[in-house]
């Protein structure tokens, strides 16, 4: 069964920074399909099913149009809210339209154990948060001023 939300045109980017490179899920990846099914628009357009390594500038080019950044990392990030300057300074990206970070801390949630078995729960989170609500399962929204 495939459940999809009505398209809301919210632009989403995903990716993690590793020592000079951005690891970014391709446009046919699980993440991209989830975002599209949640009604959002995934900004990477390369039809790659797996993660690709991007240079800082190529990622910054996509990031400047993003409204939400889906960030999945085991790092214990304590930020409750962020200023755009913090994002710019820490990640060398230009957050022109960024409203928030859809953040999943895999140490505190059972993302890897549950999300693949219950993609509906992840989709529920993404639909809620891309519509401005608060997800209950894996993600929490860190607003960016």
């Amino acid at each position, binding site marked *: 069964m495939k459940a999809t939300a009505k398209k809301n045109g919210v632009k989403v980017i995903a990716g993690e920074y590793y*020592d*000079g490179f951005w690891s970014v899920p391709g446009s046919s990846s699980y993440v991209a399909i989830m975002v599209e099914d949640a009604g959002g628009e995934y900004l990477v357009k*390369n039809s790659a099913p797996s993660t690709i390594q*991007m240079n*800082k500038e190529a990622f*910054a*080019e996509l990031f*400047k149009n993003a409204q939400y950044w889906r960030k999945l990392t085991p790092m214990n990030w304590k930020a409750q809210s962020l200023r755009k300057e913090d994002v*710019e300074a820490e990640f*060398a990206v230009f957050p022109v339209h960024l409203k928030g970070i859809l953040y999943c801390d895999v140490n505190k949630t059972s993302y890897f154990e549950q999300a693949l078995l219950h993609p509906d729960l992840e989709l529920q989170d993404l639909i809620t948060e891309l519509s401005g609500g608060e997800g209950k399962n894996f993600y929490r929204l860190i607003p960016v001023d």
Partner: protein
Amino acid sequence: MTSIKDILLKEKRKFRLWMLILLLVITVFSILELSLGSAGISFVEVFSPQNEYAEFVLREIRIPRLLTAILIGAALSFSGLVLQTVFRNPLVGPSVLGISSGASLGVALVTMAGFSLGHSDIPKVFAAILFSMSVLLLLFSVAGRFRDNASVLIVGMLISYLAGAVVDILIFVSDNDALKEYTLWGMGSFSRMNYGEILVVATLLLVAYIIVYKNRHLMNLYLIGELDEVNEKRKKRLIFLLIIVAGIITAFVTAFCGPIAFIGIAIPNLMRFVLKISDHKYLLPGTVLLGAAVAVMCDLLSAMPWSDHSLPVNAVTSLFGIPIIVFMIFKSRHKSL
């Protein structure tokens, strides 16, 4: 008959011509590096950005990367030349003393132990410097017991193997994220340094260069074996100073950019081949400039401005450096340094 004065004058002219060519090459590559990329910043915008985003890309991404490439290329080539002189061996590079391996071990311990401060590189840089300097001190504690430099070289290589073994164990027990972080660090990148770090390495390199350049005559004498006979104490002091200087430069470069392969070995050889002289008065500035030019060229290729992807800079420097080293091995069968 050609006099020695004519030969020296000819050498000087040739050196000046090559310096001019290298400065021109660095300028051209620098402009290309600043104007090519996914952000679509035009050549004119490099000098006068038209919007905030173009200004951001130049200030935060392209200019630090260009400065890093110039600096690291110069530093590694300088360090390689100094070590090749110390060991009187053209196939020696900054990595042979085990300093890079020490840095790798430090970073591996930090990464695999999961110790991080947000996205800050400080723990990694600190560990890399600590471990590489520890290797350097260890080398010196044993170096005094050996009569020849080759033994120091062997100890350095053994330290590399030891560090590699510990890193292998850490890799074997680490999780995917830590493994990925360490692997990408090991591939090297010129995109990691900020302006503060660039200033630190630039200052170190400048001081190191002045120290080594002041000793250029002694280095020339040492290279042809004259110093061995004249003054054994002075020779030991010179070697100690050169290894310390090269070691510190390698440690800081590896800490900030990861281990960058082959620049340190290939560039001094290429400069010797181009100038056809072994006088450090010419080799030192020449190697530094050629290293900077080649590093910028390698970075330009690794960034692949025509694509969203990028290649690890180590892969490109290896593709460039290995043919030169193979050439040198064949050449060294007929002629010594």
